[in-house]
């Protein structure tokens, strides 16, 4: 470690660092403007110049490597004079139009203040550039404050990986510009706000909060959009969320965020929020149920609404048994709430009919990985992969749009570490731009594709035989099937050239460890489980399991879908994946949750058969087998396949309790509406895609009469128990929780993988990835080290199968559905956040230019898609992202614009996941 002298004092400093950083660490501040610890140094502003013994001229500390014995002086009279001059020079081109961002410190003005430079005397008196010169709804550009430090350029390139900003012209005319001198969005800006976050002067500011007052407090919490699990600070003033700011201590994302996390917060206090409980008038008047939506809503007290719901549910249970009731839990809600939902279903109602959107999402992953390894979750952390992987294989994940912060980390791994990136996706998604190899396979051919790669690997003897021999089983049966997938055949099935197949196999085999990422492109098929098994085979074959930088990494979608699964929001398992068919487990929960009936008896709480999946319970609601649905934070009308059928089923359902924050498409069919709260109004935990359990902290008081969801659930449970005259007598049977923390303590007590989790630990900053075996265990960032959860990893031979519905003469296009960066599923939240809708205002339908031309469709023209099940309207977006014959639609816009009007409810036989990714449609100009 080098020894250096700063201002005459000796210091021991880190090696491989620059003087600025070394001095900072030694507690000596050297003024700086263009430098930022996250970004590569630039050395442009010259404010950090210091005097170094032996050097003719002062040197920029931010770019000066420390060397042993170096003698530097950081604050000599000459330097102070020079800094004043430099600041004055910067001020000469600095024009302040007056209304800044109140709480973003302006580094230029700060240093002027520090060195006593009178800003009013030196600043420009009239603007040089247009103020607020870019139409991006999130990023406010005012180059009059720009000091050309290029931090924005480096942030966009090095943090977000988008390279929107650049420097144009030279010398005094230098100017930062977007792209080739166009608007930010035209230059493909993803509105992540990173450039703003790194701008030291306020030349770039957050437009939605421009001019906002100073916050009273900042509350660190976890993003409620996607499973990346970013943390940020909610800024609060007068019980209002006035903005989101980065929190550098955020464990997953640091100061980085995506557009939804940073700017998509306005829904929180949107006027449309449900603010008090409502019930249908017919219920109050004791009338028969009219057709859905016809009976008007009546605002009632919590007592009225909850009693009504409790009585009705108890009655249905009494009449038709507990399995006539089904519950949909919510991946948007906390672990604590999902645990309570699962307890409500199993203990109070006595049914395993509980499921949630994970069914539509990663149910095939959970099933498949369970079969292969014994655990259905992502095995490695993102930081681990980004740091250690030599290759990354992304298949069926639009990472930069759907898991944006992970997407930008992968971009960085490619840019900085030259990680080999392979992307396989029928759509040329953005991340493909960063790939060495991009494979455009035909939709629904992933088993064949992966088998084809493994065929080549085996043919060349590239497999990790030692790993296979020691840690896996059933290899020979698997090998036999893979034999049947030679490149010629695979190329024919998938449309990928043999050359690309070979190149991919070779890249994977020669760059280890390799991590595989996937998402809905793999899971949402009738072959979803087969797809997952095949990817598991690949990673075993290459010996990429249980190692840093490798693993199988399904990217979980919703903010807390991992947690909702962990908490037993599934029909076949109690919390912690304890099977409902396991007698010991049943025994355990019967004891823990025991209730005593009025007659003193304690009959078993539940049976030992898995309940209904969401894709089963809704059709069964249509047939009357399921008489009541209790839905927490989901919007099945929009998000289940074949929406017209879903509508029919819900129409037919006798009683629907919906706990929501907005009147949604589904609320049209509900009978009781219970107003829950957003993540900003409650306490709890989310578990991100990496199995990392993180705190959600209350920032504001609940809106109107709303109550935190966990309180509502506890209240409803108590009322049902009261109607049924049951007393909780088991060790964890009660519902009197004083806080969400207490719920977590109960979770820990009954859930081995969460045994060591508590709010107290999390609040002291512990980073816990389950399994967390006890309060002293530090969690498990990487799964299956040394041994798989199930013992040996099992190879499953898999065969290619055709999707359920392929294009034909009548419906000649293949439709695949999914999402876009700026919106969230059914859009209830994102369509209520200013700006998101400005950028992406319509249901765009991606069409290949050739198809558009053949049908005479123009860009942005209104078009109409129809399938055997319904129609969907939207605007044409003509792009080569899709291949000819392939159409991509989303499900972010309601009613006639919903892509799910078209999709098919064909299910994977094992996991019951619907084939959202493939059906046949017809395309017309409307």
């Amino acid at each position, binding site marked *: 470690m080098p020894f250096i002298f700063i201002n005459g004092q000796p210091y021991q400093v880190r090696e491989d660092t620059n003087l600025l950083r070394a001095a900072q660490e030694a507690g000596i501040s050297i003024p700086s403007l263009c430098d930022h610890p996250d970004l590569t140094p630039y050395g442009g502003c010259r404010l950090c110049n210091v005097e170094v013994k032996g050097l003719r001229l002062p040197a920029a500390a931010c770019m000066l490597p420390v060397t042993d014995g170096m003698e530097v002086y950081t604050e000599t009279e000459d330097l102070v004079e020079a800094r004043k001059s430099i600041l004055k020079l910067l001020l000469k081109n600095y024009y302040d139009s007056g209304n800044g961002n109140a709480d973003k410190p302006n580094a230029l003005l700060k240093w002027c203040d520090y060195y006593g430079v009178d800003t009013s005397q030196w600043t420009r008196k009239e603007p040089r550039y247009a103020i607020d010169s870019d139409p991006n709804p999130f990023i406010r550009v005012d180059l009059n404050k720009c000091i050309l430090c290029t931090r924005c350029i480096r942030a966009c*390139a090095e943090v977000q990986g988008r390279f929107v900003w650049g420097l144009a012209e*030279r010398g005094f005319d230098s100017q930062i510009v977007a792209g*080739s*001198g166009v608007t930010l969005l035209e230059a493909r800006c993803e509105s992540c706000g990173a450039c703003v976050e790194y701008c030291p002067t306020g030349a770039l500011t957050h437009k939605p909060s421009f001019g906002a007052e100073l916050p009273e407090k900042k509350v660190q919490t976890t993003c409620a959009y996607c499973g990346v699990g970013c943390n940020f600070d909610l800024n609060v003033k007068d019980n209002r969320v006035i903005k989101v700011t980065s929190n550098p201590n955020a464990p997953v994302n640091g100061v980085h965020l995506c557009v939804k996390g940073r700017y998509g917060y306005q829904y929180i206090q949107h006027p449309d929020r449900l603010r008090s409980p409502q019930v249908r008038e017919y219920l109050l008047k004791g009338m028969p149920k009219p057709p859905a939506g016809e009976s008007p809503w009546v605002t009632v007290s919590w007592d009225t609404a909850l009693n009504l719901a409790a009585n009705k549910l108890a009655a249905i249970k009494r009449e038709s048994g507990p399995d006539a009731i089904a519950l949909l839990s919510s991946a948007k809600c906390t672990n604590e709430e999902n645990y309570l939902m699962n307890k409500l279903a199993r203990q109070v109602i006595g049914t395993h009919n509980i499921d949630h959107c994970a069914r539509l999402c990663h149910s095939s992953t959970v099933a498949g990985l369970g079969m292969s390894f014994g655990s259905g979750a992502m095995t490695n952390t993102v930081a681990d992969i980004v740091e250690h992987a030599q290759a990354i294989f992304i298949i069926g994940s639009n990472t930069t749009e759907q898991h944006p912060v992970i997407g930008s980390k992968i971009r960085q791994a490619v840019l900085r570490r030259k990680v080999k990136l392979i992307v396989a996706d029928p759509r040329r998604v953005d991340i493909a731009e960063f790939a060495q190899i991009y494979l455009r396979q035909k939709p629904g051919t992933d088993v064949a594709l992966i088998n084809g790669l493994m065929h080549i690997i085996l043919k060349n003897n590239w497999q990790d035989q030692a790993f296979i021999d020691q840690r896996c089983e059933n290899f020979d049966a698997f090998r036999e099937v893979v034999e049947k997938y030679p490149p010629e055949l695979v190329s024919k099935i998938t449309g990928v050239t043999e050359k690309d197949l070979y190149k991919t196999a070779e890249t994977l085999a020669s760059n280890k460890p390799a991590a595989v990422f996937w998402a809905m492109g793999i899971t949402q098929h009738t072959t979803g489980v087969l797809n997952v098994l095949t990817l598991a085979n690949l990673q075993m074959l290459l010996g990429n399991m249980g190692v840093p930088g490798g693993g199988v990494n399904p990217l979980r979608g919703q903010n807390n879908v991992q947690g909702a699964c962990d908490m037993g929001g599934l029909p076949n398992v109690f919390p912690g994946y304890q099977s409902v068919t396991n007698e010991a487990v049943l025994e355990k929960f019967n004891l823990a949750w025991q209730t005593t009936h009025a007659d003193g008896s304690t009959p078993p709480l539940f049976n030992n058969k898995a309940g209904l999946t969401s894709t089963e319970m809704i059709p069964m609601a249509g047939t009357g087998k399921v008489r009541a649905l209790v839905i927490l934070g989901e919007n099945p009308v929009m998000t289940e396949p074949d929406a017209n059928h879903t509508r029919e089923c819900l129409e037919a359902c006798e009683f629907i309790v919906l706990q929501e924050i907005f009147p949604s498409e589904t609320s049209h069919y509900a009978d009781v509406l219970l107003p829950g709260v957003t993540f900003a109004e409650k306490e709890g935990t989310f578990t991100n895609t990496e199995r990392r359990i993180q705190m959600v902290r209350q920032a504001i008081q609940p809106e109107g009469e709303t109550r935190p969801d966990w309180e509502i659930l506890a209240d409803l449970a108590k009322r049902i128990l009261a109607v049924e005259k049951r007393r909780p007598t088991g060790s964890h049977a009660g519902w009197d929780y004083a806080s969400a923390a207490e719920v977590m303590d109960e979770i820990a007590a009954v859930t081995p993988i969460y045994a060591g989790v508590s709010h107290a630990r999390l609040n002291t900053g512990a980073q816990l990835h389950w399994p967390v075996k006890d309060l002293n265990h530090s969690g498990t960032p990487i799964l299956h080290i040394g041994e798989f959860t199930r013992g040996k990893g099992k190879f499953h031979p898999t065969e290619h199968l055709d999707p359920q519905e392929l294009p034909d003469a009548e419906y000649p296009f293949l439709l695949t559905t999914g999402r876009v960066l700026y919106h969230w599923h059914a859009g209830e939240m994102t369509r209520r956040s200013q*700006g998101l809708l400005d950028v992406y*205002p319509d249901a*765009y339908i991606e069409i290949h230019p050739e198809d558009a031309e053949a049908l005479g469709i123009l860009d942005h023209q209104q078009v109409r898609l129809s399938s055997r099940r319904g129609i969907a309207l939207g605007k044409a977006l003509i792009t080569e992202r899709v291949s000819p014959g392939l159409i991509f639609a989303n499900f972010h816009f309601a009613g006639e614009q919903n892509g799910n009007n078209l999709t098919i409810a064909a299910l994977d036989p094992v996991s019951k996941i619907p084939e959202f990714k493939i059906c046949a449609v017809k395309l017309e100009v409307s």
Partner: protein
Amino acid sequence: MATPNHSYALAAPTLKNLEKEYPLNVPEQKAIIDRILETYCDVPGGLMVILNEIQSRVGFISQPVQEYVARVLNVPVSAIHGVVTFYSFFTTEPRGDHTLKFCMGTACYVGGTPQLIQKAEQILGTKTGRTTPDGKITLEVCRCVGACSQAPVVVVDEQLYGRLRPSKLPALIREITKASSNSSGE
């Protein structure tokens, strides 16, 4: 409120889209650019080589061309735009049929270039950095062409004229415009 942007980045401008949005106007131009790109796309650091070629063969590097090159090379267009605007040889707009480049290097400055420029601007009715309204002649200033011993120097297209006096300018310019109308077949 911001104007909604419908050409939203999601539809990353694909080649076909791009050509529609940023027409590379003349097909011959596209052919030339494609050939240049093909020849030099694998040269390490070849961007400068490519831009130099495009500048000299096409005559300018327009915004659509920048977008196009970025797309083909898979390089951020911001980087290309940065390079194009950094170097003074690259122009984003077409030049006139002929360029008159006045050397403003030290020797020529001292030797009387300012007077030459004044005279030329008067004769042509345009300013340095601009092109005459008929698109025939562009006036430019450069910094030393390395012929200082003949200061002041003017470069007409590739031809060098030294020891020029303002009084000789009218004849020189007459000659250029004559040559130009001949070559354009009028």
